[in-house]
C-alpha cells in the first residue's frame, strides 16, 4: 500500500492523540510498515480543538507532514469544518461520529462512513472508549492497518485494567462497519 | 610547600602555618587585604573541620566569585571555584552525586544573596544537606566597593555615593523563613563562637547557614570613614550582642548599629535526600533503587579521625547580653572546647 495520510480531529479529552498513536503503532510496530505521528501542540486544554496527523508508508518516511489527506476521522463538528477541505476529493475517506458531525454534500468521490461511536461506547458503559470504537470502525472501513495489528496496538496502549473494555470497544466498532 | 627562613647564622627554622595541613601554602600569600576578615573566618572554619572529625577526603568546598570566593583556592580539600552566584547549585549536584560528601559552600554576601539569591532560598527550602558559609562584609570587595543587598541604609559605596537607601537583607530572617535547619551569625571577632557554630553546622543534618560579619577596611570602612582595622574590631566588640535563639525578625543590621549575633535556629527537618528516599520507597516499594550512602552512615563508618585543631590564641570578643532565647539556641559556650 502506498503512502497514506490520515488526520484525526476532535476536541481535547476525546483521545484524539491516542487514536493517532494507536494507528501509528499498529503500522510501525505490528504491521511491519513505517509510520510517523505528529500533532499540533498548543496551550489548549480539555474541550478545545485538537488534531493528530499520521503518515503510513511501505518506505522510510522523509516528509513527515500531510500534503493531502487520504483519511479524515472527525469526532467533532469544529474539527470536521476545519479539515474537510484538506481531504482528497479523489477517493478520500471521511470517518465521522454520526452524533457529532453532520457532513454536507461532498465534492468528488469522497467516501463517507458514519458511526455512532459515543453511543456505542455508552452501551459498553464507558463513554471514554469512544475513540477506540472509532479505531475499530476505521480499521474496518479504511484497511489502513491489519485488524490484528490494530488490536495489538490497542492492547499495548491502554492501561492494563482497561484492556478488555477497550478490546470490546474495538470489536464493537469493527463489527458496526461489517454490519 | 613549607617556607624556610634563616633566623640565626647557621641555623634554619621551619616556619609553618599552624593550619598548614589544610592550607595550600604553595598559594600563599593570599589576595586578601590587611585587616580583611575573611582570613580569620577561614581559620575558624579550618579549626571547625578538625573538630568535626569529618575525614578531609570527604569534604568538598565550593565557592562562587568574589573575595570570599577565593577561599576554595586556599583550602587543601577538594575545592571548586565556580561562577558568580552558582556555588549552591554546583554544590547541590556534587552532594546528590556523592551522598558521602560533606559539601560546604563558602562565599560572600553579594555572591550568595544577590546573584545567587534564588539558589540560596531554594536550597534552604529543600533542606539540601549542605553547609553555607556567608562572609558578609556589606559590600562588593573584588569589584571595588559597590552596594550589596546587605549594605545597610546610608552607607556610602561606589554605587551609592550619596548613601545607600535600599532596605538590606536580614539573612537569618530570610533563611529561617525558607526552612534552613541551622542559622547562626557571628562577627570575625567572635572566633571561638564562630568556630563552634561552624563545627555544629558541619555536623548538622540538612541545610546549615552561618553568617560571618567581617570587616572590609579597604572599601567599606574607608568610604564610610570607620577607621582602622583595630577600630573595626573595637566596633564589633562594643556593638555585638549575643542572643542565642533571638527572634530572627529582630536581627537586621543597621548602619553602624548593634549587631545581634548568636545561634538563631537549630531544628530538625527531613533533608531533600531523606524525603526523596521516603517518597519513592512509599510509592515504589521494593522497586525503588536506593543509593544507600548517607553522610551519617559515612561518618559512622569512618573511624579515622583527622588531627585536632591547633591552639587558638585569640580571645573571643563581644559581650554576652545573657538574653539567651533558649528556644532554638544552645547554651552559651564560652567555656567550651579545646582552646588553649
Amino acid at each position, binding site marked *: 500500500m502506498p503512502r497514506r495520510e490520515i488526520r484525526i480531529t476532535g476536541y481535547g479529552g476525546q483521545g484524539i492523540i491516542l487514536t493517532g498513536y494507536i494507528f501509528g503503532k499498529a503500522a510501525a510496530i505490528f504491521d511491519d510498515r513505517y509510520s510517523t505521528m505528529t500533532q499540533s*501542540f498548543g496551550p489548549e486544554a480539555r474541550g478545545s480543538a485538537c488534531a493528530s496527523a499520521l503518515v503510513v508508508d511501505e518506505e522510510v*518516511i522523509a516528509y513527515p507532514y500531510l500534503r493531502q489527506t487520504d483519511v479524515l476521522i472527525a469526532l467533532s463538528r469544529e474539527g470536521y469544518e476545519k479539515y474537510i477541505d484538506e481531504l482528497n476529493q479523489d477517493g478520500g475517506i471521511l470517518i465521522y461520529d454520526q452524533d457529532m458531525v453532520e457532513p454536507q454534500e461532498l465534492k468528488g468521490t469522497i467516501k463517507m462512513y458514519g458511526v455512532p461511536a459515543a453511543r456505542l461506547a455508552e452501551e459498553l458503559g464507558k463513554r471514554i472508549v469512544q475513540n477506540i470504537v472509532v479505531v475499530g470502525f476505521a480499521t474496518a472501513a479504511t484497511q489502513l492497518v491489519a485488524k490484528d495489528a490494530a488490536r495489538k496496538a490497542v492492547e499495548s496502549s491502554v492501561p492494563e485494567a482497561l484492556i478488555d473494555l477497550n478490546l470490546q470497544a474495538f470489536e464493537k466498532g469493527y463489527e458496526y462497519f461489517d454490519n | 610547600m613549607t617556607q624556610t627562613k634563616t633566623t640565626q647564622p647557621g641555623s634554619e627554622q621551619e616556619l609553618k602555618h599552624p593550619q598548614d595541613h589544610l592550607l595550600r601554602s604553595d598559594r600563599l600569600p593570599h589576595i586578601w587585604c590587611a585587616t580583611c576578615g575573611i582570613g580569620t573566618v577561614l581559620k575558624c572554619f579550618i579549626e571547625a573541620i578538625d573538630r568535626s572529625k569529618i575525614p578531609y577526603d570527604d569534604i568538598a568546598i*565550593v565557592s562562587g566569585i568574589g573575595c570570599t570566593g577565593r577561599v576554595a583556592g586556599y583550602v587543601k580539600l577538594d575545592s571548586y*571555584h565556580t561562577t558568580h552566584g552558582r556555588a549552591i547549585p554546583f554544590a*547541590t*549536584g556534587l552532594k546528590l552525586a556523592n551522598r*558521602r*560528601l560533606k559539601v560546604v559552600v563558602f562565599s560572600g554576601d553579594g555572591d550568595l544573596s544577590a546573584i545567587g539569591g534564588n539558589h540560596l532560598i531554594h536550597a534552604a527550602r529543600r533542606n539540601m544537606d549542605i553547609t553555607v558559609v556567608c562572609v558578609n562584609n556589606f559590600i562588593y570587595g573584588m569589584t571595588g566597593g559597590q552596594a550589596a543587598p546587605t549594605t545597610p541604609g546610608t552607607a556610602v559605596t561606589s554605587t551609592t555615593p550619596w548613601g545607600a537607601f535600599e532596605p538590606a537583607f536580614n539573612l537569618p530572617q530570610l533563611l529561617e523563613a525558607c526552612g534552613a535547619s541551622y542559622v547562626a551569625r557571628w562577627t570575625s571577632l567572635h572566633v571561638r563562637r564562630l568556630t563552634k557554630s561552624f563545627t555544629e553546622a558541619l555536623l548538622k543534618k540538612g541545610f546549615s547557614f552561618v553568617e560571618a560579619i567581617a570587616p572590609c577596611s579597604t572599601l567599606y570602612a574607608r568610604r564610610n570613614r570607620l577607621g582602622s582595622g583595630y577600630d573595626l574590631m573595637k566596633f564589633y566588640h562594643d556593638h555585638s550582642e549575643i542572643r542565642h535563639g533571638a527572634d530572627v525578625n529582630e536581627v537586621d543590621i543597621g548602619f553602624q548599629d548593634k549587631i545581634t549575633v548568636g545561634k538563631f535556629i537549630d531544628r530538625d527537618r527531613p533533608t531533600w535526600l531523606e524525603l526523596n528516599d521516603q517518597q519513592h520507597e512509599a510509592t515504589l516499594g521494593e522497586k525503588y533503587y536506593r543509593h544507600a550512602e548517607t553522610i551519617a552512615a559515612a561518618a559512622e563508618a569512618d573511624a579515622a579521625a583527622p588531627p585536632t585543631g591547633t591552639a587558638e590564641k585569640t580571645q573571643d570578643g563581644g559581650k554576652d547580653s545573657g538574653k539567651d532565647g533558649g528556644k532554638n539556641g544552645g547554651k552559651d559556650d564560652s567555656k567550651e572546647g579545646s582552646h588553649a
Partner: protein
Amino acid sequence: MARADPGHVLTGSHYLDGDHACTEGALSAGCNFIAGYPITPSTEVVERFARRIPTVGGTFIQMEDEIASITAILGAAWGGAKVMTVTSGPGFSLMMENIGLGAMLETPCVIVNVQRGGPSTGLPTMVGQADIMQARWGSHGDYEIIALAPQSPQEAYTLTIEAFNLAEKYRTPVMVMLDECIGHMTEKVVIPEADSIELTERRKTDKPPGEYLPFAVGEDMIPDMAHAGEGHRYHITSLTHDEQGYPVMSAEVQDKLVRRLCDKIRNNTDEIVMLEEDGLDDADVVVLSYGITSRVARAAVDDAREKGLKVGRLRLLTVWPFPERYIRELAERVKAFVVPEINYGQLVLEVERCAAGRAQTILLPHMGGDVHDPAVILQAIEEAAS
C-alpha cells in the same frame, strides 16, 4: 569499550516521540543524574526521566531555574555522575554562562535543546532551528563545543548515547540540538540489547593523591579526571588555570589553556563528525541540511531527481565542530549548496565560509513555526542547477 547496563536499557521496538526517545538514550548511556526546569517543548524528556530513574538508579531534581540546572549537573559530574540537562531556547540562553564553565572545567555533560521559535519567548510550541549558532558561540570566550542534530526519534535515541560518549571522550559539554518537530514526532524506535550498546567510559586518573595534576595532558590533550572525595584534594577553578588547576593570571597560561580547550576538539574534527551523504558523486547541486529540515529536504531532493536533476544530499548529524575540510573539498566539485534552515541564515554562514566562493551558496530561510514547503526547496534546486 564498556557496554550498557541491561537494567537501564528498554530493549525492544517502541513507538516513541523524540523527547521520550532522548530520555531512553540517556538511560541507555548510563545517565544517572538530571537537573532540569520545565520548558516547552522539552519537558517530556525530564518527565520521563523523573518517572523512570527511581527504579533504574539515579537522581532527578527539578531546580529553581535553568542556571541552577546546568550548574547542578556540572557539580554532579564532578561528584561522579553521568549527567544531562534539557531545555529549550529561553532556558538555553540562561544556561550559557555555565556551559562556558563546563567547557572551562572540562566537565563531561550533555545538554539537550529542543529548539522552538525565537527570539525571546517566541513560539513555545512550534519549531525553530535558530539556536544553532548560539550552541557554538553562546558563552563568552573561546572554546569549542560538540553539537549533534537528530532527524528522528530513532536518532534522538542513538545520538543521545553518542553525545554521552563524546562528552566522556573529549571531556566537554555536548549538545543534542533536537527541535520541536522531532521532539514531538512519534515513530518506531528500536532499542537494542544492552550488550550491543557501546559506551565510552570516563577516563579516570591512575595517579595517586599528591601526584595527580587535574589538567595535565598527554598527546590527546584531554586530561584524566578524578572525582571529589577520591583523596586528591585538588583545586578546580573557572579562572584561567595551569596543569595543577591553580589560577594563573598570565597571557602565557591563557594561551596554552585556550588553545588546548579548542584544539582537543578542533584537531579531532574528522573523527567527531558524522554526516550522511547521498548522491554526491555526480551532483551539481548539494542540499545541505540538519534536523527536521533534512527530512523536508529529502522529499524535495527526491522530487528533483524525478525531474532528472543531478542533486545530492548532505545531512549533518554533527553540526559542531563544522566539517570544514569536507565542505571545502566538496565545494571544488559542485556548482552550488542549497541550505534550508528554520532560521534567517545561520549554518549557511559556515557553508559560505568553507565554500569560499568556489561554489555558490544559497540560503533558504524559514523563520519557524513550521517546516519549509518542499516545493520551495525544489524550486531552489532547479534554479541552482540551471
